[in-house]
Structures are given as structure tokens and as C-alpha cells.
């Protein structure tokens, strides 16, 4: 700051200290903004408002809770864990050996009954437990550039440790995620009639169109020493490999479902469904569980009572609070803005202390 600046700083933004400018009044212009007197709404938490708010929350939440609970109840869901059962008893001591062996018969047939009528489409999911698809090492091990176009084929720097084969040729699709592609398959039949499972449109349209290129074909996939999971047909472009696309939308939580396919027909109650499972996927090495899920859907999604219960609880609690506040207000009201409550009026010597 210079002396000139210092001298003129008294003028605030108006510069110039010459004699002529002294005549100009530096009085700040009045505006409601600069005087901080803009029109304003000054809400105060009065008992009326607070009680009304809680009642309103209750009134909104309880019906939502009921509706979602009802919707959730209507969803029919068949969950069937098969990872243990599908290991032949002789291998029960060493499940790992069973799953890693290439000669064991991994086919496993199961039957279950449809408890209620299931309107089509019935969604077929596989559910994995204890599988950290959100593991940092896992999540990062992919190359979106490579997936998107042929030009990015060599863009594999982020894919380690599954970037290249032993002889340094790039793997397409590279990375741990693709490498660990889930590869159990399910075949359904009702009363000896094969149930058609549609594997089309199980992935997001946006992924198929923009993230997985139609000119990118699998290359060197699953050819290394360690086989992680499913193999891909090298003649089908990635944009058509919907199982891969679904798999590569990594799950948020360690227990997750992924869409396997859709059964477009209705399933009647007490229908006996036979599932032929190709139990290929190795979850035995880390104690993961595999489940097969058949589920209908509703506006709330799958079967999920939590939201309904939560809404009912919160709504009920709010109503309870509202009633409590109301009682409190009736029992012990305080006149608002009563100066008698001001500290210096309650305790006259308050100022001196």
C-alpha cells in the first residue's frame, strides 16, 4: 500500500483525495440490500408449526410405509442356496478341489415349488454373499477405454494384475472384474417343459450402447494360468455380451444379486420347477455363498420389507412426538416473546456478574 493508497482508503471504493473530490459526499447510498433490510421471512419454531410439521410427516410417512410394505408382501421370491448342495458329498471335505478340477461333473439338479403365482416376467438372479465387488483393488482393475472401442485395446495400464497374458499380449476385456466373470448357468423346466430364460436386455441399454463397444471382441481372455471365471465367445462383440456387462456394473455391497435372465411366462402356484445348475463358479476359496433367486417385481422393486417398516416407524414416531409436544404445550406453555423471560429480567444482577 502506498501513501496515496493509504490516504485514499478512507474513501472506500471511491478513490481520489484531491480537493475537488472532497466535496463529493461519501455517504453510502441507501438500499435495502446494503443496509441489510431486505424483506425477509423469519420463521420461528412455534409449537404450532412444530406439531403441524410432525403430524404432516406422520401423515405422509405412514401411508407410504403401508403401501411399500404391501407391495413388498405381494412380491413372490424364491431364494435357493445351492453352493453347498451342489458339491457331491465325497468332495465335501475339499470343496476347492471339486470346483477347481476340470474333470468333475459340475451339473447339479434341484427342484423347488412355486409358493404363489408368479406373474411374468419373473426375474432370475444369482446372489453372491461375502463377495467384495466393491474392493478397491477390484473396482479399479478395469479399462473403460478398452471396453469402449477397439482403439483402446492397449489401454491396459489400470488392469493389473490381469492385464496381459504370459507373453505380454493384451487381454480383452482386461482386469480383475472381467476375469472373475460369474459363469454358473441355470436351466429351468416346469413339468418337463423347458422354461425359456431370456438373456436379452438384462444389461443397461446405456452400457451396451456407450460403454461396451460393438467393435471390441474378446481376445486372450481367460487364457492365463489362473482361470477366474467364465469364458467369452470371441466372435461376439462386447456390446452383446450382456452377462459381462451386468457383471461389470460392480455391486455396491458385499451381498448382491445380479440379473441372470428373465422368464417371460407366468409361474403358477405349486408348480414344480426343476433347475439344472452348472456349478462352475468358485466361491469356495473365500467362503462365499451362491443363491439362485426367482422374483417378481413391484413398484418398489424386489421383496424388501425394510423400507415399509422404516416408514411406518418414522411416521409413527413423528405422530407420537406431535402428541407429546402437544401435551407438553398444554401442560407448560410459554408465551412467546415475553420479556419477562429475558435473562436480565429474571436475574437483575446478571449484568454485573
Amino acid at each position: 500500500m502506498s501513501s496515496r493508497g493509504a490516504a485514499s482508503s478512507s474513501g472506500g471504493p471511491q478513490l481520489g483525495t484531491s480537493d475537488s473530490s472532497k466535496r463529493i459526499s461519501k455517504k453510502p447510498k441507501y438500499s435495502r440490500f446494503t443496509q441489510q433490510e431486505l424483506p425477509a421471512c423469519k420463521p420461528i419454531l412455534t409449537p404450532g408449526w412444530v406439531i403441524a410439521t410432525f403430524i404432516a410427516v406422520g401423515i405422509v410417512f405412514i401411508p407410504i410405509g403401508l403401501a411399500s410394505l404391501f407391495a413388498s408382501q405381494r412380491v413372490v421370491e424364491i431364494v435357493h442356496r445351492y453352493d453347498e448342495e451342489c458339491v457331491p458329498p465325497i468332495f465335501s471335505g475339499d470343496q476347492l478341489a471339486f470346483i477347481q478340477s476340470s474333470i468333475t461333473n459340475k451339473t447339479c439338479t434341484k427342484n423347488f415349488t412355486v409358493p404363489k403365482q408368479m406373474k411374468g416376467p419373473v426375474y432370475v438372479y444369482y446372489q453372491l454373499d461375502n463377495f467384495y465387488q466393491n474392493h478397491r483393488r477390484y473396482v479399479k482393475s478395469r479399462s473403460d477405454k478398452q471396453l469402449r472401442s477397439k482403439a483402446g485395446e492397449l489401454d491396459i495400464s489400470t488392469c493389473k494384475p490381469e492385464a496381459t497374458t504370459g507373453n505380454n499380449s493384451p487381454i480383452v476385456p482386461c482386469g480383475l472384474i472381467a476375469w472373475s466373470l460369474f459363469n454358473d448357468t441355470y436351466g429351468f423346466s416346469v413339468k418337463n417343459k423347458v422354461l425359456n430364460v431370456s438373456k436379452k436386455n438384462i444389461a443397461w441399454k446405456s452400457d451396451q450402447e456407450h460403454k461396451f463397444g460393438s467393435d471390441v471382441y474378446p481376445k486372450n481372455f481367460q487364457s492365463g494360468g489362473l482361470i477366474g471365471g467364465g469364458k467369452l465367445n470371441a466372435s461376439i462383440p462386447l456390446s452383446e455380451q450382456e452377462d459381462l456387462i451386468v457383471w461389470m456394473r460392480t455391486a455396491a455391497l458385499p451381498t448382491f444379486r445380479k440379473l441372470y435372465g428373465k422368464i417371460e411366462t407366468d409361474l403358477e402356484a405349486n408348480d414344480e420347477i426343476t433347475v439344472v445348475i452348472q456349478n462352475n463358479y468358485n466361491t469356495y476359496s473365500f467362503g462365499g455363498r451362491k443363491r439362485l433367486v426367482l422374483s417378481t417385481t413391484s413398484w418398489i422393486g424386489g421383496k424388501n420389507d425394510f423400507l415399509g417398516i422404516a416408514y411406518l416407524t418414522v411416521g409413527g414416531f413423528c405422530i407420537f412426538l406431535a402428541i407429546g409436544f402437544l401435551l407438553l404445550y398444554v401442560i407448560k406453555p410459554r408465551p412467546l416473546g415475553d420479556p419477562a423471560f429475558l435473562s436480565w429480567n429474571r436475574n437483575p444482577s446478571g449484568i454485573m456478574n
Partner: protein
Amino acid sequence: MASERPLLIPSPRVPNTQDLFTVPVLLDLFKSNSGRRVSFSGMETKNPAENSSSVEGTLNSSSSRRSILSTHSKASGGGGNSIREVTFADLGSKPVRHGSRGADSEGLSASQKEISDEDARLIYINDPVKTNEKFEFAGNSVRTSKYSFITFFPKNIFEQFHRVAYIYFLVIAVLNQLPQLAVFGRGVSVLPLAFVLSVTAIKDAYEDYRRHRSDRIENNRLASVLVNNQFQPKKWKDIRVGEIIKIHAGETLPCDMVLLSTSDPTGVAYVQTVNLDGESNLKTRYAKQETLFKMPEKEKVTGLIKCEKPNRNIYGFHANMEVDGKRLSLGPSNIILRGCELKNTEWGIGVAVYAGRETKAMLNNSGAPSKRSRLETHMNIEIIILSLFLITLCTIVSACALAWLLRHKNELNYLPYYRKKDSAGEDYNYYNVGLEILFTFLMSVIVFQIMIPISLYISMELVRVGQAYFMIRDTKMYDEASNSRFQCRSLNINEDLGQIKYVFSDKTGTLTENKMEFQRVSIWGVDYSGAKSQIEPVGYSVQVEGKVIKPKMNVKTDPELLQLSERRNDTKEGRHVYDFFLALAACNTIVPLVTDTSDPTEKMIDYQGESPDEQALVYAAAAYGFMLIERTSGYIVIDIQGERQRFNVLGLHEFDSDRKRMSVILGCPDKSVKVFVKGADTSMFGVIDKSLNMNILRATESHLHDYSSLGLRTLVVGMRQLSASEFERWHSSFEEASTAVIGRAALLRKVASAVENNLCILGASAIEDKLQQGVPEAIESLRIAGVKVWVLTGDKQETAISIGYSSKLLTSKMTQIVINNNSKESCRKSLEDAIVMSKKLMTVNGVTDNTGGSSEASPTPVALIIDGTSLVYILDSELEEQLFQLASKCSVVLCCRVAPLQKAGIVALVKNRTADMTLAIGDGANDVSMIQMADVGIGISGQEGRQAVMASDFAMGQFRFLVHLLLVHGHWNYQRMGYMILYNFYRNAVMVFLLFWFVLCTAFTLTTAISEWSSMLYSIIYTSLPTIVVGILDKDLSRRTLLKYPQLYGAGQRHECYNAKLFWLTMVDTLWQSAAIFFIPLLAYWGSSIDISSLGDLWILAVVILVNLHLAIDVIRWTWTTHAVIWGSIIATFICVTVIDALPSLIGYWAIFDVAKTATFWLCLLASVIVGLIPRFVVKYLYQYYSPCDVQIAREAEKFGNLREVGDVQIEMSAILGPQRR
């Protein structure tokens, strides 16, 4: 002080010439009639400036320490402070110095010192080459800019990284660059730092550009400089030390220069120093007689100036000049400083001694020392707690990760989501458990980095700028009289204004206007009080050369006295009146300036002077027909009842704080020589001849007592006729003293004392020091607000007490404890007694009565009055503690007769012993040390120059604005800032906990569900603006309520808006809220096919809505800006999340579109936000309704309008609200 080494230059005592001229002069004197006689015949006029005023004044507090005993100058009522010396060389044209007042007096005790060679700089006049060859003196080019084009980037970056916060940013960003640790993309992680750095850099660059521009203009101005014996225009930047410069009227000085000669034959130059110290009156500067007639164009002027090293003291200069073999000493009146303007003088020639950055003006530019706000200091504790949180979180994550790794040690290579070995069979990105854990720890620091709210520091700065904007723009703090707005000179301590507990105020110019009004007069034992006549004064005027001359200010006159004064010398009474007013008109250093008015037949006479007391006296004399018309060096012309008379000023002893009086020796037209003395009563009664007129003396004394009990400032006037022999004796000793080199000030003081004795008392004058508008009301408000007001003044005790009463500082209900002591022991005793007494008073009257229900019901307040002499013994000794104990029991403390440094000492006394905030307010140079010492320093931009303003944090025009500043803006600022800090802690911590919960679900591997862009934008775009806007605009109470109930100010003093309890409550709330928004979606989506990006989008939206709604619940005043910014932020977040999810290169491509189609998403969003907010809402309501704080009740009262008037709390606020109320 004298140098040990012999000086190079022989002592310039020149008795021969002096003695030679004495006789003719004396003859001349006694012969002379009133006719004008000018003779320049080589007569030597000794310059008066070589008094001891080369003092490191108040600017330099360390050196002014020695002046602790000197009394506050302006309060002592006298004229200028510097000793005035006039020699007798020439009667016709004698230089009279109306020298600069101010800091000079501070160091009178430091007598003339010699400059040792090491401390000196040598300047060869007119030989810049030789001057500069040995020493590297600064050129005259000034650079206020900080950077050049090339150095800008590195220097600016370097400076910015002085802040710890930025280093934290940098460390985080660097950590993130390590491949093992890269949590976020490399670009993304640098973004916040880059953003902050570039915003600051752009701001700095712009400011520096403006400085460059003004530097360029300044440096390229032209001045005429002597080159090859001709004055040629030269750019300012090329001027060098040692060069001879010619300045014409109206031009600004390019550098500090010693005057050699001026257009005035006596060597006087008038300068205006408004750019330097803000004082607009003209100051006189002198050229040395020895150099006065040298014409640099014709003959080569050579010489050597030996002067002190550049320093900041604008009132001090100390040098010797050797010219023509003579050694002359130079003082502050011989130098003109850069930035001054030459006025009323055709030209002046000088030699540059300090140039460029070494000029005093530039050295004084370093602004006020930066202070840190108390809130920020408190905040540091919470920052440390947050750091501990951060470390705890990181440790938890690392420990869990360790446990996980150990448990899965053997499976690592088989885990499909881990795969330790790559295809070549080598460990990929896995070192060993120890390193893995270290990396996990560092990564978690990166992920949780916003736990330390760096953005808060930036927000705080922006908020302070906004608050300052509103304070500056406040029409209620605009001073019409001085046309000055409020100024924020320091941007760091806005919120401290809301927590002040002690106000230390200067009196003169702060509480009072420093506009003196002549009120009463006692002449020859008769009291003439103007109160008898209520008629508007008719301005006295005289006719001169067909034109009417009027004084600028009219003074109330007493009709009786007016008659007497018109009768002139006829009666004995009349003669006394005549002498009295002659003394008033003559015994001063006022310069009359005759200016034209709009009416061509009228002229206005304006008395310019440095002491407002003197101005008032001269105006009063003019009103009674003794109009000072002209003052030249050597004589004055006074129009006495229409008859012009010329008085030769034979000698003048200026005011100094030891004698506390000044005197002038006049050669009257009737050829008599008289000495007129005026001064403080204490000093005058000692020199008055008591044998004469005892009755009159007594009467005067009682009048003086009356006056001072009315709060008037009194001066006693005396005179004596000098016989020829007396005069001669005085004259020779005066000559001797004024040419002395060493100890001149003391010698002169001795000479003055010799002549100022056996005086005949003429009378006494009483001047009212008018209180500023609204001061009593302001003090009352502050008192009710629980602010202790201490007044520190240099005035005498009676005056201070009377001002105390008139300003409502003291009330009749108070018990006064007065401490006046002369020794340490007596101080100790009276302090002990006083403490006992005050305790008794507190307990006896401690019984409260419940009827009043107001502040009046408190115990008897105690007022402490203590004087400077006692403080000398108390401060810096073990008695300090006792004084503090006593003072803290008193509601009012008045300190009288305190020196500037004692003021700072008293502030320090309180500041060091309590955690309470102190504020010092003052207007003069003597308040600078106090202003800098206090937590908040406020300068009054009044009449007394800019010293106080320059040192202050805030500056304003009037004392009463303090009420608006503290009770209104201070309260608002504190409330806003306190809330903002808490909110920022909360906001960032919610995000951190959200991330932390998720980390627990990812095998402790620090995956973030929220996309990295969103995490980074969270504190930049999603949530930053609302808190800043609320921090600037929200206000809990209206100005009206705050002024009506000053007690509401207590909220800040009690730290209601920001304290440890609130911090911990906020943190608990944070934990709940983060849990709510994390676990509701988690449970709803457990075992579903949700992907990580969709859930991340849900969480970021939930947290942003939650955080903004949280703010919305707390907003007190909803203006359109608040609405825009809060809802705007939520909308902006939706837009940003959508945009981020529309980028196919990112992993979360299209997630938001997909997930937003499902009902669960919206239900989760709603439920988590509501559940998160319910506890806070409930607690807030219960607290506000059942345990309301004062602010809350006042808010309700404001809204529902049932503000009952609460009896005597009501005070008249109109004066504080000011005339421009809307």
C-alpha cells in the same frame, strides 16, 4: 547519547557573528516605530528548529518508552509543544515557527543527541555521484507492487503456502500422486488446491496490477532537478539522494528533502501534509539562513549533510549540515517529506536526503500489524480435535484392514476380488502387511481429508469481506461532518467485535469533539459568563481597504465584557481587559489566513493552528475586537477595535510539557516590551507574583475551580513588563541558548523559566471541550451491554471527572475511589484500602431488589479514578495485580494524566490477565500504542491526523458509531461467524463419516461409492455457497431490537454461538445424521442388484440435501438470496450429478438415470433426510421453547410484536440512531 568519538566537524558555535548583531538589533528595537522595516543585510536568523524534537515518537513504540513521564500534550491545554526559539537578528523579518506539534513533546527528555558515524548517512549536497558511491542509497523509484511479471508466479505461490492450510492441501495432493495411494484421479485431487490458489492469485494479480499502474504514474511524474547548474525536468524515479530539487507552489514533493532556500526571503515554506498525517492545516518549514541566499543556478552549492538513518518517525529528523565551513544542526522543521504539497510559497529548493522506499512516507506504509480473531484461535482447538477424529478414523480403518489381511492371508491369491499375484506370478501391488497398512492409513487420510475443513478458511475470508462491505456501507456509521465512512482496515477480526468486554477510550477527540468553544472568562477576578446573553452573536468584523474582514467562526460574547473591551484603555478595568485579550490574540502560534468569500466585499479570516484551544482563544479575542490579522515572521498585526497595530514578536517560548505554559515577548507600539504568558493553572500559580493582588488571585482561583468542575478546560494568563535591562539579559541568554548545540532544549527551558516569573495575573479563560454527539447515550448503551468503559485521558483529574459526569460515565449513584499517589508505598496502601472498600460495597449492597427488574438494581457501582503519576508506580510492578483486582470490581475506570505508553500499559494489564476481549478507541498519535495493543483497535478519523487511523483495525468518524459497530454489526458478525464455523465442521464431518461407514463395507479398502468428482465438488459447489451467503446475510435480530436491548450483546461475551459444548453437540448430531443417510439406503438395498455408482449417487444427493436442509432449518431470515442459494445448491447438485453420470468415460455412466426411475431411490432419499434431521429439529425446538436464550426471546418478540417496554432499560436511542434515521 552523544557519540564517543569526536565529531568530524567542529562545533558551529559562532559567537562572533551573533554578538556582533546583538547590539544593532537592540538599538533597532528601541528606535523602531511601528513602521515596517525589513533589512536583510546579511543578518543571520538562527533557525529555531534545532530543538530537541528529534524524537522517535509514538510511531516507534520501543523508543518512546523513555517518554513515559511526559504528559499527554493536547490535554494540557497549551499551544504547540515544541519550544520556540526566536533570535534577534532582524526585527523586520523574523522567522516564527508554528512548528509541527505532536510527537515532538514525547521525547523532550531525550536531549539533543549527536549522530555517530555508524548511524549516519552522509549526503554531499549537489553531488549525487559522491553521495551514492560509498553508500547504496535507495533510488527514488518506488515500488509498492509486490511482484514483477516474472516473479509473480513463484513468489505468489510461495507466499500463499505460508498458510498451514494450503500445506495440508498440498501434502494431500502430493500423497495422492503416489501410484500406490492414488485414491482419486490425479487431476481431481489437485483441483481444490488449484482452485483456491488460482482464485487468490487472480485477486493478488489484480491488486498488484493496480499498484503497478499507480507506481508507474508516480515514478514518471516530473520534478525540476539541478543538472549542470540548470533546473531541468527529471522523472521522479531518476532522482537521487544528494541532488538539488526545486519545487513550485502546488507541487508534491518527490522525496524527503532538506530545505535550502525558498522564495520567501526569510526562508519560510508552507507545506500541507494531508497525504502524510491527514492534518490539513499548513505547516511551516524553514531553510537555513546560511543557505538561504545561495543560488544553485549561479554558484555551486556544496556542503555535507550528516543525518540519521531512515526511520519511520514523521515528526522527527536529526541532522547536521556543514556548509561554508560552518556546522548547522537541522531538525524536523528543515525537512519536507515526500507526499507533502508546497503551498503559499512560490518555490522551494532543497537537497534530497531520503529517496524512494527510504522516505518517511514509504516507511510508514506498512499498515497495521495483523491480528488474529479470538474465534479463530478458539477454532484451532476444535481443529485439533477434528484432526484427532481424523487420525482415529484412519487408525480404525487401518486396524480393521490389518485384521482382514491377516485373516485372509492365505486366500489372497484366490480371492477373485484381490488376486495377489499377476499372470507372471509376481505379487502385484502387494508388499507386506506392514506397508499395506501404512498405505491404507495414508489412503484413508486422503479419503477423509475434508475432515479438516480447509474450505472453511476460504469461506471465512469471503464472509469477512462481505461483512466488511456491509459495515462500510452502513449509512448509520457514516459521519457527515468529516464525510467519512466506516473503514475496515483489518479483515481478520470482524467477529471479535461481538465479544468485547472492555472499551478503552481516549477522551479528547474521541469522546469530545476536540472543537473548543470559548465559554467563560475571568478577568482581573471578575467572572464574565456568556450565559447571561442568549442573543446570537453578531460576528465582529473590521473594514480593511474597503473590504470587510470577518472571522470564520463566531463566538458567543458577554455584552458587559464587550462594552468593557470597547472602552479600551480608558479605565483600569479596561486596561486589564485590553491586556488580557491582547495576550489571547498574541500569545499563540496561530496563522491567520485571509480568504475570499462569495461576497466580493467580504473576506473571511481563518485561524490556522495546531492547537484547537489556541484557535478558540484567538477567535474569542477577535470577537471582542482584538482581531489577529497578520502574522509574519517577526511581527504580528492585530486589529484592536478597528485600529491596526503592529507588535514585534521579540521572542517566543513554545509550550512544553514540563513548563506547561508558553510565553511571547512583544515589542509594543508604545515601545514597551511585555512578556505574556499563558498556561495551565498549576504551573502558572507558581510563577505569579503572589504579593500583588492577592484577592484577585483568590477570585481567579475559585473561578478556575468552578470552570473545571463544569468540565471546562482552563488556562491562566499573566503578563509582565520587561525593563530594558531585563530584556537585554533575557535576550543574551536566549541567543546563547538557541545557538547551543548540546542540550539546547534544556537551556531554552531555563531561559524561559527565567523570564516567566513574577507575573501579574490577568485572568483565566475557560474553553468547553464539546462532547461528541450521542456520547452519553452511547456510553449508557455500552454499559447496559455489559461492556466496561475505561477512559484514559491526558487531562487533569477534575476535567476528566467532569467529562465523566457529562458523558454519563459517572453517575451520582457511584462511589468514587480516587488514587493519587506519589510513591510506590502509598500506592500500595491506597490500593489495598480501595480493594477492601470495593469489596464492602459489593457485598453490603449486593442484596437485589426484585421490584426494579432492571440494571439499576445491581449493587452500588464503583468508579475508580487514578492518575498517571500513580500509574507510574503501579504499572510494571507487582502492584499491577492489585490494580487489576480493583479495576475488575469497578464498573468505570478513569485514568487521568496518562502518557501514551501508559495507555498501552493499562490495556495490557487487562488483556494479559483475562480472556476477555479488549477494544481501544482513540484519535491521536498518542493513542497509537493503545490501539495496537488492544485486541481490537479503532481509530477515529477526526481532526487529529491519521496516525491513529493508520494503526487501527477499524476507523470511523464518531464515537457513537461504536454502539452500532459493537451491538449491531459485532453481534451479527459474531453470530454469523460462530454458526458458520460450526456448520462447516458439521458439513465436512457428515461427509467424512458417510465415507467412513462405506469403507467398513468394502473390506476396509477405501473405495468410495460417491464418485471422486462429486467428493471434490462437495465442498466447492454443492454446499459452499449457502454457508457463505448465510454467513454474510443472515441476521438473528434487527438493528432496532439490538439497540433497544443492549443486553443482547452479552450473547457474544458469553460465547453463546460458538463454544465447546456446541461443538460436541454438533459432532454427535453429525454422527447420527451420517448414520441415518448411510444405513437407511444400505439396509434397503442389502442383497439387491444396486451397483456402486447408483448407491453413491443416492448418498451424495442425500447428504447434500440433508446438509442444505440442516442449514435451512437454522436460517433465521429468509431473503430471496437465501432461497436462491440453498435451493439453488440442491438443484446444482442434481445437475452436476447428472452431468457426471452422462460422461461415458466414468464408471458411473448413466447410473443416476437408471436409479432415479425406481421408487426405492426416492423413498430412501426422503427417509434418510427426514430421519437425519428429526433429532436436531426436536432438540432445537425443545431448547428454544423451554430454555430460550435472550436472543431467542427477542426474536419472538420481534416477530410477534408484543415487545413490552421494559421500564428504565429504555433509553433515548435517537441520538445513537443518528439524524439520518429512516
